């Protein structure tokens, strides 16, 4: 019998039953919820007159819809306040742990799960948010679900899921200086497109992936969903164990050693078979940026926007539509464009390493006067650490505006909106029309590329600053 992939090992161990000709009943170890996709699920179980089945396996935090200034005050926007209060009310009623707005653990769900050690190798994890794939960086099967499924988990700690196919993406070799995890994943998505991963769960492997820190691995897994994949994961190794050691919800002492022993069995067997395999050479990857309105429309920062002839005939209409929205010309250079906003934050790049990278880059420099630069830490803990490390000071001296933790301009549900027609270089994960505010134009890039744009005021290759 052929060996098993890491994905299969975890998935199969969580199947309560398989419905004939149908999906599997998959047991969920850890559930995360936030204010936007959970209220209707709580309403659903209440309508059925049932209680939350395993309240201790759900953790809640408000993030999508919270203001990023004056978080100590009541939320001004009435609907947002109501939604956030509803989360508190539901958690209190059902005995669910909540890290509310002024709690030191509050933050974007996908930032707090890992930093608190809630996320662990071998788990199944879900959340009503597609970027749940982030947690796969720890070797867990983690994916986003809809609200009906949130209700299923609340009611039974299970969901019904068809099993995805398995894809392996190897990235071998060394990346050049100035190239980081965000560039790797933008490069992959631009190669396979936003539907190339649909139906699959991706395992990332290869030396370039192994060499990434946990935070960088999270950036890669986070954007798996942008290729259409259900999720992405990376086999846990010493880097993973070192990261987890000593975190709030990770066992300590002998229990930790026992856990590590178990986690070491989590890898794809040598002879495991994948439904699709792809390989990329890390040396080919350059700093990437998107020019269109989906994350697959990316290119090397020194390249030109493609011409319609470079695009498959079937995709030309949407290509032209995207350029019209972005107000870009086909065939024109990407670099050198005037940038109005820079947004550093989100569950893709709002962790401490990202803030560190930006602060290192801007230290002793000033942002260009016409650029509005927002830095939004992914969590209260990231914010605290940034203060302690002196990052906050460096960024403020450079003219960046530090806001309080939340999803912020990543989805622009709160007041953090990029105005109509303005061009933003953002470290988040989606450049859809209107994603960062009605009419806002978004170019996705890494934190250093965003920092370079903030300093020069135009789209700039960050390597020009690296000696």
């Amino acid at each position: 019998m052929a060996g098993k992939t890491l994905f299969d090992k975890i998935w199969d161990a969580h199947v309560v039953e398989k419905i004939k000709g149908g999906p599997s009943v998959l047991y969920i170890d850890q559930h995360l919820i936030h204010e936007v996709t959970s209220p209707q699920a709580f309403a659903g179980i209440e309508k059925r007159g049932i209680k939350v089945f395993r309240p201790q396996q759900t953790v809640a935090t408000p993030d999508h819809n919270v203001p990023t200034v004056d978080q100590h005050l009541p939320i001004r926007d009435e609907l947002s306040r109501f939604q956030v209060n509803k989360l508190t009310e539901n958690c209190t009623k059902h005995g669910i742990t909540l890290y509310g707005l002024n709690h030191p653990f509050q933050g974007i769900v996908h930032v707090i799960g890992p930093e608190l050690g809630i996320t662990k190798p071998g788990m199944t994890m879900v959340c009503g948010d597609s970027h749940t794939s982030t947690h796969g960086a720890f070797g867990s099967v983690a994916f986003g679900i809809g609200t009906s499924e949130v209700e299923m988990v609340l009611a039974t700690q299970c969901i019904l899921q068809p099993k995805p196919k398995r894809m392996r993406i190897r990235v071998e070799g060394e990346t050049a200086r100035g190239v980081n995890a965000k560039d790797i994943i933008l490069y992959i998505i631009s190669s396979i497109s936003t539907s190339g991963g649909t139906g699959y769960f991706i395992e990332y492997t290869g030396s370039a992936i192994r060499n990434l820190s946990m935070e960088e691995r999270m950036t890669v897994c986070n954007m798996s969903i942008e290729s259409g994949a259900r999720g992405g994961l990376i086999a846990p190794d010493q880097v993973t164990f070192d990261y987890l050691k000593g975190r709030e919800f990770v066992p300590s002492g002998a229990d930790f050693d026992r856990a590590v022993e178990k986690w070491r069995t989590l890898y794809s067997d040598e002879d495991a078979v994948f439904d699709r395999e792809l390989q990329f050479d890390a040396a080919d990857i350059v700093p990437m940026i998107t020019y269109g309105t989906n994350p697959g429309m990316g290119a090397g920062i020194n390249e030109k926007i493609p011409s319609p002839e470079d695009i498959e005939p079937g995709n030309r209409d949407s290509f032209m539509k995207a350029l019209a929205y972005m107000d870009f010309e086909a065939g024109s250079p990407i670099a050198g464009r005037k940038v109005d906003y820079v947004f550093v934050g989100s569950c893709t790049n709002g962790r401490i390493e990202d803030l560190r990278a930006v602060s290192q880059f801007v230290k002793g420099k000033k942002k260009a006067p016409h650029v509005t630069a927002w830095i939004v830490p992914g969590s209260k803990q990231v914010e605290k650490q940034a203060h302690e490390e002196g990052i906050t000071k460096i960024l403020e001296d450079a003219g960046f505006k530090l806001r309080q933790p939340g999803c912020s301009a990543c989805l622009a549900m709160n007041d953090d909106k990029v105005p109509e027609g303005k061009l933003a270089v953002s470290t988040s994960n989606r450049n859809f029309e209107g994603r960062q505010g009605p009419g806002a134009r978004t170019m996705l890039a890494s934190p250093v590329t965003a920092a370079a744009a903030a300093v020069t005021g135009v789209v700039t290759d960050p390597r020009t600053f690296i000696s």
Partner: protein
Amino acid sequence: MSIEKFKTILSTAIPLPIENVDTDQIIPARFLKATTRDGFGENLFRDWRYDKNGGIKPDFVLNQDRYAGTILVAGKNFGSGSSREHAAWAIYDHGFKVVVSSFFADIFKNNALNNGLLPVQVTEGFLSGIFSAIEQDPGTQLKVDLEQQEITLMTTGEKEYFQINPYKKECLLKGYDDIDYLLSIREKIARFEQSET
């Protein structure tokens, strides 16, 4: 709480020949502040339907009287992006029962099925056939027969078989929902938990 039983549909369709329609277009994030499932239809495709002052954009298909019906026909890779089920709610709430495309994003497909909205995946060729038929005559009707797993372009009689998971098909036809099923096996789930520890 069950979903509405899915019956065979014979209807005109609304064409949206755009690819990669993402969930942020279907329902922009700023409309996700509600805590109930109702009323999302009003903001379906909000920024394509209305300008920033709330004025109607006459070019958009939903604003054109010649198009009507309970079937939405869209370009490939429909529903990509976020997991917000509000996207499926908005489409359903607006009155659609079926979305036809040549490719659907996974999470959207699940969300649609969980709400009684049927995603019908057809070949590229069949899809462009539908688009040109509607372009010629907006009164073109489509028939969607879930029992037979068949979609028919009524003007030409062209048919195509579509795939659906047999379990999901049964749920839609009978109006069952997954939660009822999961609740019925709660004891089994509890035993599974025991065996794990």
